[in-house]
């Protein structure tokens, strides 16, 4: 089920009323919330909804075992259960997401020269195996949002192992934490310590709802997705990435800028709508974006982009690897491993691995540079602002360069993009993407960063004093304008595929 659809609007209205009207019946309320989440997920595939249910049961049972074993025998006794939980979750993720990549892009290409060396019989055997395996691999469907809920489950079992959080009181509380529909398919990846207590206690009517912020997040999310991201995808990014040879350098640049703003608007829109809908149900999620294209270094960028993933990678991968506690060389290796795996998290393809490697290498360079060189800091306010502007522009273009790898899909398209980027004239001279409307949409998308991180808190708080019917009417009028501005149809969110 997609957020900007009629089906979701009807679904949410029903769930909102059921959720709040069952306040006096906590178990029934929790049951309804879980049923709603499974319906939301099962609307796409009921088989995968059952898989999600199984994941909640296994993870909850393992977390309880980890806690029990830890209480009676310490870390030594609880570690096997943690290993079991990690194997289960990574096995689930790997079998759906990485099986095709490992077999088709790693194993078979490695086996081909070996079989050639061994002789015709080995080659015939390999051809036979490939003919058997490839059709089977092509049938494997990636469950939507599996990377998100698997990482959430992993953080839960690891937090229980470390004693940072206690296991959820009941399976129902944990199932609601893992399968909660607003953030189920594209995050934010919420930690157990943040959401499990909320699921155990359940929000009460007497605690007022931050409806001003919720409404603002939902409407700005819908604007970013249905107007800006969809427009940029259809008019700038998709044409350039589909056929880069048809465009000149400036047009390809426009396409890359378009994709940079599209992916920000698309992904942050999902997070905003998720946070907003959860707020209306009385649940609080942490922010997931904080004006990422205003970062002045790549490290700063990762503190602002997909914050829930970058903090997950920091806490459960980078720091356990040693973080920055060891030598500079060791820190560099840790950074590289973290970003290579971060790239692989996004998708099972070489371009995602290159994308992760690009970020990893750049961060290594940046860290080394910052450790050895003192960068100039302007004395006057104007020179400081100018330096900040230059740093922001530089990092924005570094990130845009990485989006080339991310979006290209294969190295052939990437080569075409780079060649076209360096060509002043295009193969089709009359084609140009530059114009007033594209620049306006790009500017609108870029400026949406100004609303990240609850910066308009003062305004949204004031909305609490307005009568309900005025708030409702205002939101309906704004959404009507958004719907009129948006193109027909709903494109899926980019991060659904991860």
């Amino acid at each position, binding site marked *: 089920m997609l957020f900007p659809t009629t089906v979701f609007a009807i679904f949410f209205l029903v769930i909102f009323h059921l959720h709040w009207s069952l306040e006096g019946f906590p178990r029934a309320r929790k049951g309804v919330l879980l049923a709603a989440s499974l319906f939301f997920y099962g609307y796409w595939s009921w088989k995968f909804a059952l898989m999600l249910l199984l994941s909640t049961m296994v993870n909850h049972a393992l977390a309880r075992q980890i806690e029990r074993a830890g209480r009676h025998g310490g870390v030594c006794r609880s570690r096997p259960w943690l290993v079991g939980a990690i194997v289960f979750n990574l096995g689930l993720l790997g079998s759906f997401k990485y099986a095709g990549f490992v077999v088709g892009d790693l194993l078979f290409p490695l086996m081909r020269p070996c079989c050639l060396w061994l002789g015709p019989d080995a080659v015939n055997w390999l051809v036979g195996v490939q003919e058997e395996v490839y059709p089977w691999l092509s049938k494997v469907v990636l469950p939507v949002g599996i990377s998100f809920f698997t990482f959430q489950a992993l953080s839960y079992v690891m937090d229980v192992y470390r004693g940072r959080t206690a296991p959820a009181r009941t399976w129902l509380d944990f199932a609601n934490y893992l399968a909660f529909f607003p953030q189920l398919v594209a995050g934010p990846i919420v930690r157990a310590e943040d959401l499990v207590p909320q699921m155990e206690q359940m929000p009460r009517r007497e605690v007022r709802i931050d409806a001003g912020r919720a409404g603002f997040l939902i409407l700005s999310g819908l604007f970013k997705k249905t107007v800006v991201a969809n427009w940029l995808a259809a008019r700038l990014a998709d044409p350039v990435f589909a056929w880069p040879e048809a465009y000149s350098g400036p047009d390809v640049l426009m396409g890359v800028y378009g994709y940079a703003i599209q992916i920000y608007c698309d992904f942050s829109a999902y997070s905003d709508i998720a946070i907003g809908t959860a707020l*209306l149900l009385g649940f609080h999620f942490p922010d997931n974006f904080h004006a990422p294209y205003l970062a002045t270094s790549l490290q700063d960028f990762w503190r602002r982009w997909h914050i829930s993933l970058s903090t997950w990678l920091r806490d459960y991968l980078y720091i356990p690897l040693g973080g920055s506690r060891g030598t500079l060389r060791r820190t560099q290796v840790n950074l590289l491993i973290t970003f290579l795996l971060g790239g692989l998290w996004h998708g099972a393809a070489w371009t995602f691995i290159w994308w992760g490697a690009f970020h990893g290498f750049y961060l290594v360079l940046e860290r080394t540079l910052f450790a050895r060189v003192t960068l100039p800091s302007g004395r006057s306010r104007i020179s400081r602002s100018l330096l900040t502007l230059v740093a922001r522009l530089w990092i924005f273009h570094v990130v845009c360069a990485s989006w080339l790898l991310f979006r290209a899909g294969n190295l052939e398209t990437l080569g075409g993009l780079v060649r076209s980027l360096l060509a002043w004239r295009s193969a089709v001279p009359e084609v140009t993407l530059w114009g007033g*409307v594209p620049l306006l949409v790009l500017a609108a998308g870029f400026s949406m960063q100004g609303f990240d991180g609850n910066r308009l808190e003062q305004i949204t708080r004031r909305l609490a004093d307005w009568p*309900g019917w005025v708030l409702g009417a205002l939101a309906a009028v704004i959404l009507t*304008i958004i719907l*009129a501005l948006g193109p*027909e149809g709903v494109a899926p969110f980019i991060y659904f595929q991860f």
Partner: protein
Amino acid sequence: MHESTAADRQEIAAGVPFHTVNRALLVFYALLVALNAVAWHEANERLPYGTARTMWVSMTGPLARVCRATGLDRPRAFLTETLGSVLNGSD
């Protein structure tokens, strides 16, 4: 009974009471349907033939007729023809 946390107390002071949110949500849905029923119905008519299309069209048809008769569809039509066509019109 749950204990009241500091965050709860802050929300009690700053948020919106449930009944206000409920009223806002009902007004929002009603007005949204009223303003967009015709466009919604037209989009449903473009769905591929099947049970889903039949269900949606039969649901939005009467709403669209009422909204067209009362002129509630005009703001959305005006916005689509002006702002929407600037953005989404063919080059």
